[in-house]
């Protein structure tokens, strides 16, 4: 892949078509992966020796938490690219990330609370990681609200891009200052650097679920970005010919 083909992605018509073409593939593969992961997680994996069958919510909780953080980083990276190259495509990507990421954050919070109820006795314990997930939700909401309240779209794009960058710098600081309390949350079970502290038959469904959720995020993102690009480029010729068809030929 050379630089030129990356630059080409910045052209709205090409990216719009790419989104439209890729979206069903992302969706189908994510549904397949989630189905396989669900079967593996709910039927194949043995019950946990401590938590019994209740641990199985991990197959929904961890993937949504993973996607919620990945989406924020993705949003910030798109925002940086947008700020540097003033690219409409990158800004559309960043803007489309926010509501999807916020939804996954909400999902992670809900599943975490459902998991906490039988394990900790209460749904909410001000545990460090749940709390920083909640803060992440507020950062997403701030981004969305700021975008909604600035009428000029180009200004809104750039102002929210700054906010996303500041947020991504701040998330680790916020996270570690919250961790500074005693935390109830179990230690992370999958790590790149250490041998995972989880049985293989429990691990593979989790990995497949994470992949499936990531692809689901990609599917939602391409759909939203295509719609966002269509709104932004509604006056251009390429979109009109793409949707209505070429009137000169008819």
């Amino acid at each position, binding site marked *: 892949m050379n630089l030129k083909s990356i630059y080409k992605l910045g052209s709205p018509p090409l990216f719009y078509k790419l989104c439209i073409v890729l979206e069903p593939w992302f969706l189908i593969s994510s549904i397949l992966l989630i189905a396989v992961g669900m079967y593996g997680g709910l039927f194949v994996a043995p019950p946990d020796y401590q938590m019994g069958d209740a641990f199985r919510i991990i197959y929904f909780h961890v993937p949504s938490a993973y996607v919620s953080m990945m989406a924020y980083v993705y949003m910030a990276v798109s925002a940086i690219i947008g700020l540097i190259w003033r690219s409409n495509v990158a800004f559309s990507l960043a803007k489309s990330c926010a509501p999807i990421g916020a939804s996954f954050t909400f999902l992670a919070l809900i599943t975490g609370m459902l998991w906490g109820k039988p394990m900790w006795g209460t749904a909410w314990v001000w545990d460090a990681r749940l709390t920083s997930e909640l*803060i992440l939700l*507020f*950062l997403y*909401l*701030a981004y969305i*609200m*700021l975008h909604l*309240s*600035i*009428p*000029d779209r180009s*200004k809104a794009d*750039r*102002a929210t891009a*700054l*906010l996303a*960058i*500041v*947020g991504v710098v*701040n998330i680790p*600081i*916020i996270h570690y*200052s*919250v961790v*500074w309390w005693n935390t109830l949350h179990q230690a992370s079970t999958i790590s790149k650097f250490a041998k995972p502290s989880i049985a293989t038959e429990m691990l593979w469904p989790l990995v497949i679920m994470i992949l499936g959720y990531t692809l689901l995020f990609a599917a939602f993102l391409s759909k939203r970005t295509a719609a966002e690009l269509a709104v932004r480029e509604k006056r251009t010729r390429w979109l009109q010919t793409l949707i209505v068809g070429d009137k000169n030929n008819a």
Partner: protein
Amino acid sequence: MMKVLRIIFLKDLKVSLRRWSDLLTSFILFVLVCLIFPLTLGNDPSLLLKIIGPVMLVSALLATLLAMQNIFRPDVLNGSLEQLTLNSYPLTLIICIKIFSFWVITSLPLILISGFIASSYYVTGNSIFIVVLTLLLSTPSLVHISALAAALTVAIRYPGALMALIIIPLSLPIMIFGAKAIEFSISGIDASAPLYFLLGMMFFTCSLGPMVTAAAIKISID
């Protein structure tokens, strides 16, 4: 260069002092929020000693939030900020000096009165000094974060709630460590670790904050 910065600093001080009612409002808000808690919780020294840290920081945050809504807005409306972005001096420095003058006007009174409020919460001895020191170290960070939020929302007519939504998550570390510092010193533990963290955050926000705020101003104005 220094002359220009001094002129901007003195001008901001003067303008803010002329609009003294705004200043007084945020100062009174700080005092009132601090007073509500003893009145509603009851006159129990052990309880008051437990809550003074969070109360101090939350009231300082609210007062800063209220005061900082007006840091850039009047200058944008009368066009003087646009002139400042057009001249040859770096905007980051100008923003820095503006934020500093706002800190002097809005936060310094809070810091001065905080010792008295602490003693009304039955804080004694060295801990009063720690309360004042905590506010001294945390208000610069709060002011810088609020300035960034004010710069991002400068085009919006009623930015208050949105500013709160932006500021509160970002200022969470300062809240946590500030409250910890006061709590530690009252329960007799060495409070230097959270104070060092606050100092670090202060340098972090004071060095990078004005740059980001200047970028936000440039976006909002052009």
